[in-house]
């Protein structure tokens, strides 16, 4: 038992975790009905992909994968700011956050 606990973690487990996180994000995107929660599911997908980037950076000892994650984080910050501003604007126009009731582009 202690020998099992002493061993190293295979990188494929990290990759599997990232695949599962991504799929959970997709499922959340499909089943959630609140605009903000749908947006959070997108962030969950981004995080799952980031984990696989970091895992491959560790595998190939290449720092470029980590730099890619850094850029993903910066763009995600910009995306969150703009997306949440859009959500506020939509809420002001429609007074609802239910994605089923926000089905027209026209205000």
């Amino acid at each position, binding site marked *: 038992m202690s020998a*099992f606990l002493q*061993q*190293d*973690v*295979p*990188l*494929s*487990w*990290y990759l*599997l*975790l990232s*695949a*599962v*996180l*991504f*799929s*959970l*994000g*997709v*499922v*959340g995107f*499909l*089943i*959630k*009905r*609140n605009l*903000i*929660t749908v*947006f*959070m599911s997108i*962030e*969950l997908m981004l*995080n799952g992909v*980031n*984990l696989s980037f*970091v*895992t491959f*950076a*560790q*595998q190939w000892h290449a*720092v*470029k994968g*980590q*730099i890619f994650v*850094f*850029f993903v*984080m*910066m*763009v*995600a*910050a*910009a995306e969150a*700011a703009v997306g*949440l*501003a859009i959500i*506020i*604007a939509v809420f002001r126009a429609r007074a609802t*956050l*239910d994605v*089923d009731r926000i089905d027209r582009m026209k205000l």
Partner: protein
Amino acid sequence: MHLILFFIFAGFCLAGAVNLLLQSHPITSALSLIVVMTSLAVLYLMLGAEFLAIAQIIVYAGAIMVLFTFVVMLLNAGREARTMGSRVARTVGFPAVVAILAVIATVILQAQGLGAARLSDGLTDVKGQTNLEQLGAVLFTKLLLPFEVTSVLILIAILGAVVLASHEGSVEQGTGNRDQGSERTGEE
């Protein structure tokens, strides 16, 4: 040790993600997303990406999630109606998700040459440089232009957020109360 830490934080990660889907209140979803991001930061640390682990906590769990919780509270978002998604989501979406997950899992499990992660890995490379030194060396020499372009992107995003979130046509500064009052009556 590494294995125990991996199981603990991968478990936190999955539990947070599943909890995000199960909760019907947006604020609890946001809090479980913070749990996911923080445990991901620990996983990054175990994979030898110290800078990204700190950036994950500061940028994601800090800045972005504060924005999310702020908007949830600002809009007073209540309990959402519980549905099982649209018909398209049921008939096409879920089988597609399962298929994607199955394909990715098969590819990963069959991949040859994937190594294992050691806790001592990644702190320094063969030349004795730390992770942060390597990142900085590449980021500020080879990738200087993309880095600067990102800062312009964030500047544009700030301006866009201000423009989108402000009331159309009226800039509310200083004379807040009177402005808002007249607007509210105008809307009604």
